[in-house]
């Protein structure tokens, strides 16, 4: 059983949710973390377009009031076992949008967050480390 678990844990598929982010962290996720230099595919990761294929969820943004219900619904569409990574300072504390009337965060009031990657935006190395930590947590849930 542990062999199968180890083998399964080498195939974490990533899914990105933008919970009202300014797009800074998304740029870091989409381009910086994907360019040859920081290739996440070597960890077996693969960005997928559908929440149903996801294992590790990367959430960016402070969870604005407008997207809150949609983000929660999207999160419930992701099959178990899954791990959540909050990318950037916004989902962790609200960042520069904290105390705004339009922001519902921090995000861990609504979703179970496993790994925090702070920064505005975080460095690609930090994102990769966050993903590597998330894989460890995910492995224990498989």
């Amino acid at each position, binding site marked *: 059983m542990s062999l*199968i678990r180890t*083998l*399964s*844990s*080498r*195939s*974490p598929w990533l899914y990105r949710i933008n919970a009202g982010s300014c797009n800074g962290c998304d740029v870091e996720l989409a381009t910086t973390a994907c360019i*040859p230099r920081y*290739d996440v*595919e*070597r960890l*077996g990761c*693969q960005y*997928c*377009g*559908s929440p*149903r*294929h996801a*294992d590790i969820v990367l959430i960016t943004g402070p969870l604005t009031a407008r997207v809150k219900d949609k983000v929660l619904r999207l999160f419930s*569409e992701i*099959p*178990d*076992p899954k791990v959540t990574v909050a990318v950037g300072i916004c989902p962790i504390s609200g960042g520069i949008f904290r105390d705004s009337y339009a922001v519902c965060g921090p995000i861990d009031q609504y979703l179970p967050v496993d790994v925090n990657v702070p920064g505005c935006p975080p460095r690609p190395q930090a994102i990769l480390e966050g993903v590597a930590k998330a894989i460890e947590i995910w492995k224990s849930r*498989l």
Partner: protein
Amino acid sequence: MPESLALLLSVAIFPGGAFALALGLGLKGIDRRVAARLQRRVGPPLLQPFFDLIKLSRKKTMVPDAACRPLFLALPAVGAASMLLAAALVPIANVYLPSPALGNMLVLFYLLVVPGMVLMLAGSASGSPFGAIGFSREMMLMLAYESPIVLVLVAAGLRAGGGDGIVLSLSDIAAYQQAHGAFLLDPAMWPTLLAFAAFLPANLGTVPFDTPEAETEVLEGPLLEYSGAPLGLFKVMSALKAVVVLNLGICLFFPATPDGLLPGLGAHLLKLLPMAAGVTLLRVSMGRMRVDQAFRFFFKWPLALAAAGIAAVALS
């Protein structure tokens, strides 16, 4: 060995079943690795498709409320089963001759249509608008690439018939080439070869013809709502399909292998690698065609080439 047991073994273990699945997943791993290296990346481990499959089998399966549940869950199994059978239908020269009881070229052609049909039905059964777009695109693309492949099969059958009608058995086509030289080196068959080369990426659903499952446009279309084991079965289906179609290409154009089981199999695998690498090279060096562009492309070049191929065979 009794006939029925031998049939079962050829479908379940070799050359269909376990062997074809391992080969298909291995080719997929090589494809991803080569693509990564061409983009100056490290790339995933070679066994990545195996890990993906094991992982998918341990994920929860979710069925959308809008989906037609029995159809939604049965389709991936139908697709994988059809390709399992098809893998046992293609001969490997000097290594494996399919039993005539399994069927001939026509059966193989019908089985090759099944994955496309399954994807179309899966897209519409999932109840997702992206699935519906995938459905219509898959249908357009199938209509486009089916006619050239029919003509390719006919041309190969006519050539192997040598002037007295058409040969429908793939084993006989391979045997004819072993006696008279490979079609690859026969100038009358070159237009047919080119038409088959265009059919290959379209049937495998890779760039530039991956429009029905375009990730960045329709989020993998028909596969969007699938999760867990059924998604894994779709991965099995596409891995097996790659093996079937590549084997078919080898059987139709270059079946010659050294005598003996192991050398023959080794030579066959060596022939598979450059074909798979060609598909990968095409995949990383091109953009995606729009579905109307792909449709027009297939009704222009591959169809003309395939028709020219038949004319060349008839005249020579």
